[in-house]
């Protein structure tokens, strides 16, 4: 269940955002990107954020992922208030709770698919054999078990994005943040990626927050939220369940 009204409703949300402000200063001008934003997302939700360029979608995603700090307000994820964490704590928190999927995939070209996926696991205490098992498992989930040794340049855009999703999944994060995950793909590949994300929500109980410009991509989410001038507005619900 996704809410933007700021009512506590028992306080059981996985992600709870209250009064979130983000302002930038450009010379003497103060730009309000997000203004008093409230949001509650439950575990297992698939939320799409839409809005025109500059509406603050990516900024919101960066704040939820602990990549940026808000000017005011609070973000609580699974009981952890992240807005006042130190940079070091925030880094450790990200490693444990957040899986990032980027529009441009952002794979490391000199590493194979398996090595790219393994990156977040290097920060854990897992043994090499255990890491290998985890990597094999997630690459199987995204349908690339037979491409483990391939390098990014040997993969199609859709396959690269699948590797990106596998990298985001491998450490079993609390939620996935996807920034335009289909923005650089053709329609067929985009549909496959969206199918995969929906499958992760449906079959693996993952929580997915996705920024997109594409209405067809947004249709796949349970909830579509529109950001306009820094304010969240609830949109149509797909009614998947």
């Amino acid at each position, binding site marked *: 269940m996704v809410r933007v009204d700021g009512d506590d409703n028992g306080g059981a949300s996985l992600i709870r955002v209250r009064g979130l402000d983000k302002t930038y200063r450009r010379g003497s001008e103060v730009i309000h990107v997000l203004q008093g934003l409230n949001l509650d997302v439950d575990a297992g939700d698939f939320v799409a954020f839409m809005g025109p360029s500059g509406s603050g979608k990516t900024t919101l995603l960066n704040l939820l992922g602990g*990549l940026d700090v808000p000017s005011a307000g609070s973000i609580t994820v699974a009981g952890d208030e992240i807005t006042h964490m130190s940079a070091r704590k925030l880094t450790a928190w990200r*490693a444990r709770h957040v899986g990032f999927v980027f529009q441009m995939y952002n794979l490391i070209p000199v590493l194979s698919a398996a090595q790219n996926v393994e990156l977040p696991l290097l920060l854990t205490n897992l043994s090499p054999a255990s890491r290998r098992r985890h990597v094999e498992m997630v690459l199987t989930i995204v349908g690339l078990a037979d491409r483990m040794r391939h390098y990014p340049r040997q993969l199609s855009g859709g396959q690269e994005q699948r590797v990106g999703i596998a990298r985001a999944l491998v450490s079993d994060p609390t939620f996935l943040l996807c920034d335009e995950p289909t923005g650089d793909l053709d329609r067929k590949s985009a549909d496959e990626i969206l199918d995969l994300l929906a499958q992760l929500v449906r079959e693996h109980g993952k929580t997915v927050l996705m920024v997109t410009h594409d209405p067809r991509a947004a249709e796949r989410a349970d909830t579509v939220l529109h950001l306009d001038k820094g304010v969240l507005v609830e949109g149509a619900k797909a009614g998947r369940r």
Partner: protein
Amino acid sequence: MRYRHLLLANLFRRPTRTGLTVGTFAVALFLFGILAVVRGAFHQGIDVAGTDRLVIINKVSLIQPLPFAYRDRLLRIPGVAQATFATWFGGVYQDERNFFPQFAVDKEHYRDLFPEFLIPDDQWQAFLADREGCVVGVGLAQRFGWKLGDRIPIRGTIYPGVWEFNVRAIYRGGRTQDDTTQFWFHWDYLDERRPLDKGFVGWYTVRITNPDDAVRVARAIDDDFANSPFETKTDTEKAFAASFVKQMGNIEFLILSVGSVVFFTLLLVTGNTMAIAVRERVRELAVLKAVGFSDGLVLGLILGETVVVAAVGGGLGVGLAKLFTLRGDPTGGLLPFFYLPPQAMVVGVVLAVAVGLLAGVLPAVAAMRLRVVDALRRV
């Protein structure tokens, strides 16, 4: 090391660039190795000098002789235990390029004063028994293919004529850095044949009973011969060797200057290369940070790359320098001690790693300070 494959993958991302950077380190460290060898060659005399030996030369200059009669007077000075002498011969074997030092030596005591030169007793006895006999270092014997019994003609430049000698003994050095390119023969033989300077020697070497007493004994010797026609100048063997090196110019300063310029250039080249490498990977570094790599870890990965390049290049360079020295003195005898000691090799690699670390600091700090949000926004 769990990040090994990440580090290696980044190093091999642009093999040509990495190869050239490793090559830069290798060339610089090769040069360092050769400079260390040259420095060692010039300092060899100082390094091997005996702490209990004093060298006495004519106060006017080294080329002015001293009377043979001084030997007995030296032995009477308190603190002097033994005394011997030698004279520079300065001959030419076959060609002037075949330089090696030739000394007419005091056959009775010379060996006692220089026990670091190891000579089999039977060979030494054969030398003593042959007035035209000579003792050659093993390095010299190998250089010219001499063996016991060979007859060696040497053309005198100070003392005219062709002088012929029989190889009766071959000495080895007791230590790695001992000079094994010397040629000794009987001073008696020289004194008998030369038309000038009869009854004179080139310099004396004395052993003192207590090395801590060197200054006092040196002063006593010079005082004893003060106001005589042949006043003396006495130094410890180390000081004598050092003054000899000084005559060649400030080799130390020259080597230090060249070495500093080379390492500074290396620092700039490597620093620039690493800065380019980091700039090219801004997005990737941002992704690493996004997935949870800490600032310190990113710093360590960048520094790790420069250290690996520096260590491999540095190791290669000093290794090549070592190989080069194994071929022996390339100057034809001017640098008889042409040797790269293991300590210098270690210092070279440590210096290379230090330069690598230093060169990597700025790019690594830039990577460490990178804000993920800003980096991901860049195209």
